[in-house]
C-alpha cells in the first residue's frame, strides 16, 4: 500500500537525518554550530532527501492492478525474491536505453549550442558593450524568464507550425515553395531547449567575464598573443568557473526536460522526462516511473560529482587567481 511505503520511507528519512547532520558538521563543532545548520538540513531533508527516499521506496514496489502500488504481505520474503529490482531491470531494456541515450545527447547538444551562442554573447556584453547600455541588454536576456516557460514554448509552436510565422515568411519570400514540416521534429525540440536554457548560460558567463581584469587581456596582447590566443589562453581559463556553472545549469535541466519535447517534438523525440511523466500520468506504473526518476537523479549527481572534481582542479588555480576567495561560479553547484 502506498501509505505503508510512505511511512517506511518517512521512518527511514527520520533515521537518516541525524546521521546526515553529524556528517555535515565538522569534527569538534559545538552544538551551536549544528543548531545554526539545522534549518538548512531541515530544508534539505524535507525537500530533497525525504522525496528521494520515498521515490526509492516506490521504485522497489510492484504496480497494483489499477495503478498505485500492490500491497506487500511479507516484506522479508519480498526482498529475498528480488522482485524489488524488477522496475530497474525493466529500465535496462533497449527501448528505454535508447530514450536515455537520446536524452543524453540532446542535452549535450543543447549545452553545446548554448555555449556556442552564450559565450560570444556574454563576452560582447561584458567586454565590448558600453557600460550604460549593458543594463538594458542584460534585461533583455532576463525578461523572457518573467513569462511562463509553458507559454513561451507554445509561442514556438506558433512560429514553427506549418501555417506558422516562419513558414509564412519562407513562403512569402519565395525561399520555400511549400510549407516545411518543422514542428514535431528533433530540431524543433533542440530549438526550444536552447531558447529556454540560453539565459542560464549567458548569466553566469557574463558574471565571470565581467569580473575579468582587462589589463590581463592587454598584457596578453602586449606579449604577442593575437585575438584568438588571448581568448583561448586568458579569457576562457579565467572564466572557467562561470563556464562550468553555465554548463551545469543548462545540462541538468535539459536532461530532465519534458515540456519542450512534449509540445515541440513528435513521437520520435520522447525523452527521459516524457517517459517518467508518462509512467505516472498515463501508464500508471508508479514503480517504473520512480525507478527511472531515481536513475536520472543518480546520473545527474554522478555528473555533478565529476564536474565538481574537474572544478576542484580548476578551483585550485582559481583559488590562486583570487587569493583563496572561492569562485562564485561554484557556489551555484
Amino acid at each position, binding site marked *: 500500500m502506498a501509505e505503508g511505503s510512505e511511512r517506511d520511507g518517512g521512518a527511514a528519512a527520520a533515521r537518516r537525518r541525524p546521521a546526515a547532520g553529524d556528517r555535515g558538521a565538522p569534527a569538534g563543532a559545538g552544538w551551536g554550530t549544528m543548531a545554526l545548520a539545522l534549518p538548512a538540513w531541515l530544508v534539505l531533508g524535507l525537500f530533497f532527501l525525504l522525496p528521494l527516499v520515498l521515490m526509492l521506496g516506490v521504485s522497489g514496489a510492484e504496480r497494483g492492478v489499477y495503478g498505485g502500488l500492490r500491497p506487500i504481505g511479507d516484506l522479508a520474503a519480498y526482498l529475498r525474491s528480488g522482485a524489488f529490482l524488477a522496475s530497474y531491470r525493466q529500465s535496462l531494456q533497449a527501448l528505454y536505453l535508447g530514450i536515455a541515450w537520446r536524452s543524453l545527447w540532446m542535452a549535450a547538444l543543447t549545452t553545446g549550442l548554448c555555449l556556442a551562442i552564450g559565450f560570444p554573447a556574454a563576452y560582447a556584453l561584458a567586454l565590448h558593450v558600453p557600460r550604460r547600455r549593458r543594463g538594458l541588454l542584460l534585461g533583455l536576456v532576463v525578461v523572457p524568464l518573467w513569462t511562463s516557460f509553458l507559454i513561451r514554448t507554445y509561442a514556438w509552436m506558433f512560429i514553427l507550425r506549418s501555417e506558422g510565422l516562419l513558414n509564412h515568411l519562407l513562403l512569402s519570400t519565395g525561399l520555400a515553395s511549400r510549407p516545411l514540416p518543422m514542428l514535431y521534429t528533433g530540431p524543433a525540440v533542440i530549438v526550444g531547449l536552447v531558447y529556454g536554457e540560453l539565459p542560464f548560460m549567458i548569466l553566469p558567463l557574463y558574471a565571470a567575464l565581467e569580473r575579468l581584469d582587462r589589463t590581463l587581456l592587454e598584457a596578453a596582447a*602586449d606579449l*604577442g598573443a593575437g585575438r584568438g590566443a588571448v581568448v583561448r589562453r586568458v579569457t576562457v581559463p579565467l572564466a572557467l568557473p562561470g563556464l562550468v556553472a553555465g554548463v551545469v545549469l543548462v545540462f541538468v535541466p535539459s536532461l530532465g526536460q519534458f515540456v519542450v519535447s512534449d509540445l515541440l517534438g513528435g513521437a520520435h523525440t520522447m525523452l527521459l522526462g516524457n517517459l517518467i511523466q508518462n509512467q505516472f500520468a498515463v501508464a500508471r506504473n508508479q514503480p517504473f516511473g520512480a525507478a527511472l526518476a531515481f536513475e536520472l537523479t543518480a546520473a545527474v549527481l554522478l555528473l555533478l560529482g565529476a564536474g565538481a572534481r574537474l572544478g576542484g582542479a580548476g578551483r585550485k588555480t582559481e583559488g*590562486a587567481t583570487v587569493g583563496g576567495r572561492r569562485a562564485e561560479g561554484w557556489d551555484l553547484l
Partner: protein
Amino acid sequence: MSSRRQAEGSPADGRRAGVDLQAVTKRFGEVTAVDGVTLAVPAGELFSLVGPSGCGKTTLLRLVAGLEWASSGRVRIGGRDMTSVPAHRRPVNLVFQHYALFPHLTVAENVAFGLRYREGSRPRRAEAAGRVAAALGLVRLDGLDRRYPHQLSGGQRPRVALARALALEPQVLLLDEPLAALDQELRQAMQLELKRLQRTVGITFLLVTHDQQEALALSDRVAVMSQGRIEQVGTPLEIFEHPETAFVATFTGAANLWDAEVLGAAGEGRLRVRLAAGLELEVPAPLPAAAPEAPLLLAVRPEKLTLRAGAPPAAAGTDLAGMAALPVTVEEGIYQGARTVWLVRDAAGERRVVHQPSPAGPARGAPATGLQPGSPALLCWDPRHSVLLRR
C-alpha cells in the same frame, strides 16, 4: 656609459632601438589626452616620462605599446613606422602598473607566455625553458618558477613582470609606474635594481612615473609632461637646475615664483631684471631667444633660500655680499627632522616656502633661530640661484 655597455658585450647589441614620436595626438571623445607630442627617445637610454596624474604620460606609453591608436601623428620604433601595427606585433613590451600577471599561470608559465609568438622560429621546449630561467635569473628570482602570482611577495611581483617582458627580448621596454604600488623601502631597492637591469640588458627603457624624485634618480633623460604636452626634455640635472617653465620648476620641487621684468642685458649671459617687489637683480639668462620684453618669472627653490631674523631694512635690495634680500613676515615653521620648512609672507602678501637645515640648537627646546611666527625676517638668496622662466 654606453661605451661600457658595448665593452660588456651586452645582449642588446644590434637590437637597440629608440622611439620616435611625431606630432602624436590622442583624443578620447572631447578630451585630448596627448596633444601633438614630438619626442625622440634615443636608443639605449633609460628615459622617463614624468608628470602629474592625468597629464597623458600613460596614454603616451600605451600609444608606443600599441594598446591605443593615435588620433594623428606617427609612432616609430627603431626607425620603423609602427603607427598602425597592433600591439602583439610591436617589438616592445610593457610592464603594467599592477603587473597584470596571469593569475592562473605559474611564474614560469607567465614568463614563457609570449615566447611562442616571437617572430621567426617558435622556440623548442628546452630552449624556452632556458629563456625563462635566464629571464628569471636576470631579475634574481631563481627557484620561484612553480609559484602562482598570489603566492609572491610585493617585491617579487614586479620582478616577474620584468622577467616576462624581458624574456621576449624587446627592442624597447615600457614601464608604467612599475614601482608605484611598493612601499618606500622596497621602491628604493627596486629603483637601483631597475637601473642595474637597464645597464645589463642595454635596451631602451621608457618609464612612466608621477614621482619626480624617482625620475631624477633613475633616468638618463626626463621628459616632463603637463596637460598632454611635453614641457621640457633634458637630463635630470637640466630639468632640476634649469627648468624652462613655471610648471617644470614647480613640479620638480616647490618653487618660489616672482613676476619679473627684464631691464636689459648685463654682461655675458646675464640679464638685469626687476621683481614686482621692487628688487633689482642680475641673474643668469639661459634663454637667449627670450625677447627682453616677454613677461618672465623668476624662480628660486626653497632650499636655495635662507631666512635671517631681525629687523628688516627699509626696502628690498642686495646686501654687501651681493645677496638678494626681501623683507618678509614669518608665518610658521614646520620641523621635519633634517630640515625645517618655513612658510613666510612677503610684502605683497604672497606666500614663500623656505627649506633650511634644522639648526643644531640646544639639546632640548626650540632651536635658537630667533624666528617666531609673526616676527619679521629677511628672505635672502644668491641671485645666481635664480632661474628665469617663460610664463
